[in-house]
C-alpha cells in the first residue's frame, strides 16, 4: 500500500511537469506564497510604521513615491503600500482558498446526492441551485452586504460560497447521472453494496477530477469577486485587501498621479487569479480527453 | 480486367506518447474493377486504418512511412491535401457505420448528400436534388425523407441514406467500413442484401471491412484476412473457405459458432492479440500459433502467391 502512495505523488509530479499551464501557474502561486509568509516579517520590524492598518509613517505627508524605507511608496496618509500589498496576498489566499474549499465541498456533495438519489431530492436541490444561479451575483452580494451593514471577511466568505456552489453541483450532478447508469455501479448494486458505500467508493472518486478542476477555478472567481466588492467599498474595513488598496487609490484622487500605488494591487489580483485559472485549464486538458489531440 | 487499386508494401504508424504503433505493416494487394474485397480481422488489427489510408484521411499523429497506394494507376501517397480533396468521394467514397454519427445532426439528410454532389460536379441545386431523389429510390428510401433530419430516421434508414450518399458522385471505388455492425440482426441482413444487390447492379468495386467473417462470406468474392497490421492471407472467398491455409484463418473459422450443421465445439485461439507498440519479432502470430517453429520467432514470413490468386504469409505452409 505504501507503494500506491508513492505512485500517487509521482503521478501528481508528472502532471505538473507535463503541462506548461500548470508549471506557470504553480510558479506564480509560489511567489505569492512567499509574499504572504514574508508579510509578518516585514511588518514586525516596526509595526507602528509598517502595520498595514494602523501604522503611519510620521515623516511622510500625503502619498509619496518609492523610497528605500517604503519600496512601493506610501498612500495618502503615509501608510506603507508594500506592507498593504503583502497583507493583501494573505487575504487573497485565505479567502480564495476557503471559499473554494467550502463551495466545492458543498457543490460536490449536493451534486452527488441529487444525481444519485434523483426524484424529489434532486428536484429540490437543483431548483434551489437554479434560483441562486439566476440571481445576478455581484448585485446580490452588494445588496446583502449593504443590508448587513457591517462587513467582515467572514460574512463575505459565506456569501461568496453561497453563490459559488450551484455551478459546481450542477456539473457534478450531470456527471453523477451518467455515472449512475454505468454498469460498474449496477454491478455494485447487484452485489449488495449499500448506497453510502456506492457514493463514497464508486461515485466520489470518479468525479474527483472535476472537483479538482473547480477547486482551482473557484479560487480565481472568489479572488476576483472579493476584489470587486472591496473596490466598490463593501470590503472588510478592518483589513486591507488588494481590492481595497485600489479603491483608496481611486477614490482619493491619486489614481493618475501615483502609478506606484495604482499598478501593484491590480497586477497582483490579476496575476494570482490568472495562476489558479491556469492550473484549472491545465487540469482540464488532462482530465477531459476530448480536448486532447486526436 | 483493369486494376483499380494496388497497394504495395504499405506501412503506416501512429505516434503515441509511448512510441510508434505500426497499425499497418507491409501490406500489399490488388483489387480489380468490379471486384468486391472483404477485409476481415479483429478490432485493432488495422483494417480501419488501412481503409483510411486509401482515402488518406489520417489523424494528425498518423504517418504513412513507406509504400505506394496506386489508385487508378496513380500513387496517391505523395499527393497534397488539395489534390486528395478532388479524389475523395469522386474517386473513392465510403459507407460509414450508421451508429457512428456519420451524418451531421443539424442538417437535413438530403442537403448533406446534395452538398457532396455540388462539391464535385458543377450542377445546379435542382439537378442535384433530382439525382438524390433517384438515389433514394435506388436504396429503397422514400424521396420525401430527404427533408428529414438524421435523428428522425431509424437505424436502417440512416444506413440506407449513408449508402445513397456514398453513391452520390458515382465513385470508382467504395469502402464500406463495418456498415452493419450497430444494426439489429434483421435490419443488418436487409442492408447486406441491399449492398450485394447494388454491387451487382452497378458493377461497383468495393472493399468491405468487417470483423464478421460470415458477413464477408456473403458479400464479397475475395477475402483478405488481417492480423496485427499484416494481411496474412488473401484469395477468393470460395478458395479460402475450401482451403484455408494460414493458421490464424483456420482458427478464426473454428471460433465462430453457427446455426447451420451439427453443433461443434469451438476451438478458441489461445492468448490475446499482440500489443502493436512492441509487436513480437518475426511472425506476429507465432505466440498464439500451434504450428510455430524456430524460424517463425525470428523472421516475418513474406507475403507470396503460393498458387494463382492465393497469397499467404506463413513459414509453415510455404
Amino acid at each position, binding site marked *: 500500500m505504501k507503494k500506491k502512495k508513492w505512485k500517487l505523488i509521482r503521478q501528481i509530479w508528472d502532471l505538473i511537469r507535463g503541462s506548461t499551464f500548470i508549471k506557470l501557474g504553480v510558479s506564480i502561486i509560489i511567489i505569492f506564497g512567499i509574499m504572504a509568509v514574508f508579510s509578518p516579517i516585514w511588518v514586525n520590524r516596526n509595526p507602528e510604521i509598517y502595520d498595514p492598518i494602523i501604522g503611519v509613517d510620521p515623516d511622510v505627508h500625503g502619498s509619496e513615491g518609492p523610497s528605500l524605507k517604503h519600496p512601493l511608496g506610501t498612500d495618502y496618509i503615509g501608510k506603507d503600500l508594500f506592507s498593504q500589498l503583502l497583507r493583501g496576498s494573505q487575504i487573497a489566499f485565505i479567502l480564495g482558498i476557503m471559499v473554494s474549499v467550502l463551495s466545492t465541498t458543498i457543490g460536490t456533495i449536493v451534486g452527488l446526492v441529487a444525481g444519485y438519489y434523483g426524484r424529489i431530492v434532486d428536484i429540490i436541490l437543483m431548483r434551489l441551485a437554479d434560483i441562486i444561479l439566476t440571481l445576478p451575483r455581484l448585485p446580490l452580494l452588494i445588496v446583502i452586504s449593504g443590508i448587513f451593514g457591517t462587513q467582515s471577511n467572514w460574512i463575505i466568505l459565506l456569501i461568496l460560497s453561497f453563490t459559488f456552489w450551484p455551478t459546481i453541483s450542477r456539473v457534478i450532478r450531470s456527471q453523477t447521472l451518467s455515472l449512475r447508469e454505468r454498469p460498474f455501479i449496477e454491478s455494485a448494486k447487484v452485489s449488495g453494496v449499500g448506497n453510502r458505500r456506492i457514493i463514497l467508493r464508486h461515485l466520489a472518486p470518479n468525479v474527483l477530477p472535476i472537483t479538482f478542476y473547480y477547486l482551482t477555478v473557484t479560487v480565481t472567481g472568489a479572488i476576483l469577486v472579493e476584489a470587486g466588492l472591496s473596490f466598490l467599498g463593501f470590503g472588510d474595513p478592518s483589513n486591507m485587501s488588494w481590492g481595497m488598496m485600489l479603491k483608496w487609490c481611486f477614490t482619493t484622487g491619486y489614481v493618475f498621479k501615483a502609478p506606484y500605488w495604482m499598478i501593484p494591487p491590480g497586477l497582483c489580483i490579476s496575476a494570482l487569479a490568472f495562476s489558479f485559472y491556469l492550473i484549472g485549464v491545465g487540469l482540464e486538458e488532462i482530465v477531459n480527453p476530448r480536448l486532447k489531440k486526436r | 480486367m483493369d486494376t483499380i487499386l494496388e497497394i504495395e508494401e504499405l506501412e503506416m504508424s501512429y505516434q503515441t506518447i509511448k512510441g510508434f504503433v505500426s497499425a499497418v505493416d507491409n501490406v500489399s494487394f490488388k483489387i480489380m474493377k468490379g471486384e468486391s474485397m472483404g477485409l476481415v480481422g479483429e478490432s485493432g488489427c488495422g483494417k480501419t486504418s488501412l481503409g483510411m489510408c486509401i482515402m488518406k484521411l489520417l489523424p494528425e499523429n498518423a504517418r504513412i512511412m513507406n509504400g505506394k497506394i496506386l489508385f487508378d494507376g496513380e500513387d496517391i501517397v505523395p499527393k497534397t491535401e488539395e489534390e486528395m480533396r478532388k479524389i475523395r468521394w469522386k474517386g473513392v467514397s465510403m459507407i460509414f457505420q450508421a451508429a457512428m454519427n456519420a451524418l451531421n445532426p443539424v442538417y437535413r439528410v438530403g442537403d448533406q448528400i446534395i452538398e457532396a454532389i455540388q462539391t464535385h460536379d458543377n450542377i445546379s441545386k435542382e439537378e442535384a436534388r433530382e439525382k438524390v431523389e433517384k438515389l433514394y429510390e435506388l436504396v429503397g428510401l422514400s424521396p420525401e425523407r430527404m427533408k428529414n433530419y438524421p435523428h428522425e430516421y431509424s437505424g436502417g434508414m440512416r444506413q440506407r441514406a449513408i449508402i445513397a450518399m456514398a453513391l452520390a458522385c458515382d465513385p470508382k471505388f467504395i469502402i464500406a467500413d463495418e456498415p452493419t455492425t450497430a444494426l439489429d440482426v434483421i435490419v443488418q441482413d436487409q442492408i447486406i442484401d441491399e449492398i450485394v444487390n447494388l454491387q451487382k447492379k452497378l458493377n461497383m468495386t468495393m472493399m468491405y471491412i468487417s470483423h464478421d467473417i460470415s458477413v464477408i*462470406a456473403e458479400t464479397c468474392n475475395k477475402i483478405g484476412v488481417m492480423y496485427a497490421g499484416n494481411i496474412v492471407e488473401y484469395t477468393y472467398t470460395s478458395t479460402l473457405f475450401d482451403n484455408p491455409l494460414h493458421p490464424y484463418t483456420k482458427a478464426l473459422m473454428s471460433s465462430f459458432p453457427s446455426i447451420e450443421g451439427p453443433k461443434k465445439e469451438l476451438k478458441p485461439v489461445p492468448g490475446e492479440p499482440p500489443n502493436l507498440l512492441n509487436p513480437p519479432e518475426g511472425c506476429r502470430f507465432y505466440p498464439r500459433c500451434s504450428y510455430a517453429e524456430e524460424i517463425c520467432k525470428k523472421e516475418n514470413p513474406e507475403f507470396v502467391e503460393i498458387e494463382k490468386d492465393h497469397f499467404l504469409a506463413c513459414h509453415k505452409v510455404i
Partner: protein
Amino acid sequence: MEMVNVEHLTKLFPLRKRLFSREKHYVYAVDDVSFKIEKGKIMGLVGESGCGKTTTAKLLVRLLDPTSGNIYIKNENIADLRGKELKKFRKNIQMIFQDPYESLNPRFIVHDTVAEPLIAQGLYNTEKIYNALEVVGLKPPEEFLFRYSHELSGGQRQRVAIARALVIDPIFVVADEPTSMLDVSIRADVLNLLLALRKKFDLTVLFVTHDLAVARYMCDSIAVMYLGKIVERGNAEEIIKNPKHPYTKALLSAVPIPNPKAKRKRIKIGERVSDAVNPPERCRFYERCNYKKDICKRKYPKLIECCKDHFVACHLYG
C-alpha cells in the same frame, strides 16, 4: 429441480409526463413473461435490441423493481424483497455485464473489484479471492491482484468480471451479452470458460444474447422475445432447427452463415415501426408478419405448447 421460476413478470416504464396532459403512457418493456429454468441448466433469452431482454435480466437480479409478477429462486419469491432481506438474498444471484470496459470501476484494482461482493456481504476472505481468480484462468492470481482494469486486456477484464460474480458462490447467474463486446478469438475462449464453470459449480444461468448462433452453442433452452413478450420458448436445438413463430423464422433466416456456398433463403419483413407504448390487444408482431390473419388483429395469442416442451405464441398454431 426448478431453480428459477418466473411468473407473469411485468415491467412498465412511465413515459415522461407531458405538460397539461392527464393521460398516462407506459412502455411495456416486459409484459407478462413466464419461464422456468432447471437447476444446472442454461436458458438463452434471445431478441433484438429493445425487445426487453435486458430489462428482464435486470428484473431477475432486482436492479429494477417489477411492476407485477413473481420471481421464485429456490422457491423463495424475491419479487417483493426489500432492504436487508434483499441485500441478504443478493449473494445468491449475480450478474455478468456486457461490456467489461464499463462493468469494472476504472479506479479499482482487481483485488478491490473481486473483494467487493464479499465485503458487502461481510464474508471477506483472501483465499476466496485467490480461488476465484484461479478458477477463471487468471493465473497466478498475485500477478493480477494489484492491477487496474486499464492494465488488463479485454478478455482478462471479462474474466475478472466473472470472478467477481462467482466469488460469493451464487446459485443463479444472469449473463447479459457477456461476449458481444469481445473479439472473435477471445469470445470463444470466454464462452468455453462459462460452460466449464457451469459444469464445475452446477450453476443455473440466464444467458441474454442477440446472437442466435451463440445462444445455440451455449444454451439448453431458448426463449425468443419480441416487444416485451416471449413469443417462442423450447429446447435450443429444436428452436434452431424447427422454429414455429414467424418472427423466430425471420430472425433465423437473417443470420449470416460463414459459408459462401450455402445460399440461405431470406424471409423479408419490414423494419420495426411500433414501440411497446400502450400496446394494443393485438399480436405485437402483426404489422411485420407475413401470415397475419384477422384474429391476430383482435387478440394477443397465448403461449401454448405446440409440441413437447416447445411453446409458441401465435394464432397459426392451435
